[in-house]
């Protein structure tokens, strides 16, 4: 008969981040694993959004987390830890790209005029897509490809706001831009993604054809 464990010494408590950070600063460094756990995926995906390469994103994610550990004393309590960590990650990713991949070509859409008006394409209606379709790897793949094709400033903004659910203000802070810029970029990113994905996800849903390569609608 297996022994049953009915009670735990430390029942689940609300996650008190502030206290954790204080204790880490006071020398309980092992608590850093707990602090970082809820954000591991976020750090990776932020790095990936900028670098678009798994191996680089992993290296940068590790560097960012190490940096957060090293500089935990510099964290100011008025910001959220998640925003601070995201900022570190963005800086690390940008530095990495400048250092290691200075010659990489940026997609042409990066040179798009942010202020110019963008005309969304006149596609037929895109009915609601059940979220279960995300279980399909090829769907996630197509979404990732569409996102990767956006210019960096749109990609960064979209990832922070719509994927990581930072507020407009937090996104602006993490990227070092104004909230007005966040809104403009967000609008543009969402419109471009809608245009990229509608032909595939809205129409030929059952087929493998989503959107043909090289036919960006803008």
């Amino acid at each position, binding site marked *: 008969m297996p022994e049953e464990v009915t009670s735990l010494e430390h029942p689940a*408590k609300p996650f008190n981040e502030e206290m954790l950070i204080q204790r880490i600063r006071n020398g*309980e460094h092992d608590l850093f694993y707990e602090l970082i756990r809820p954000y591991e995926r976020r750090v990776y995906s932020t790095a990936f959004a900028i670098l678009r390469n798994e191996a680089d994103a992993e290296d940068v994610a*590790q560097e960012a*987390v*190490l940096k957060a550990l090293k500089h935990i004393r510099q964290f100011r309590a008025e910001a959220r830890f998640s925003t601070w960590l995201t900022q570190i990650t963005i800086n690390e990713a940008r530095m990495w790209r400048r250092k290691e991949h200075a010659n990489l070509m940026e997609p042409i859409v990066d040179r798009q005029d942010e202020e110019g*008006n963008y005309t969304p394409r006149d596609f037929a209606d895109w009915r609601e897509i059940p979220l279960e379709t*995300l279980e399909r790897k090829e769907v996630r793949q197509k979404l990732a490809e569409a996102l990767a094709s956006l210019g960096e400033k749109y990609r960064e903004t979209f990832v922070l706001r719509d994927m990581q659910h930072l507020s407009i203000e937090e996104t602006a802070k993490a990227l070092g831009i104004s909230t007005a810029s966040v809104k403009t970029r*967000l609008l543009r990113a969402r*419109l471009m993604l809608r245009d990229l994905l509608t032909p595939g996800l809205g129409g030929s849903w059952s087929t493998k054809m989503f959107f043909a390569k090289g036919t960006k609608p803008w």
Partner: protein
Amino acid sequence: MVISCEEVWREISNYLEGEVDASLRAAMEEHLRGCKHCTAVLDGMRNVVQLYGDERMFEVPLGFSHRLHRRLEENMPGNRRSFLGWMVAAAAAVLVAGSFEVARSSVFSRSELRSEHAQPGTGVPPDMMVVVSGDGKTFHAAGCPFIHDKAHIQTIQAREALRQGYAPCVRCMKKYLTA
């Protein structure tokens, strides 16, 4: 107020955010009722936000967390030694107490530990049922709040968990480690 398609597009993202004032909202809704194109743009944008906002869009490479923790361990300030020291002391205490049966079944026959962070659990009753998860490194009592990746858990005997290289959770298994 009558507004054009261009004006709707300019504000459509703010509209989704609920960030337009009441009169603009009313004007946009009025426009949307009669404009198929703008309605399709709005529906499409809403789909985009919903799909990308889903947690399943985040895919991290297999073993990412494990490798991250390993790097962290290598870079932990001073405290690491004292933590290890504590674990070694606990293990030694158990050995001295004469738990050779446990030692034989876990320490000496275990495969390589899944993490340097993890230390052999020598005081855990070998028949106890514990919970492990695929890419986790530790085993837990059922219901422990520190179970990693709850979606892929498995209940096995402590003996088997140790043999597979899992180490006891330092929280829920604490009483066995300090015994």
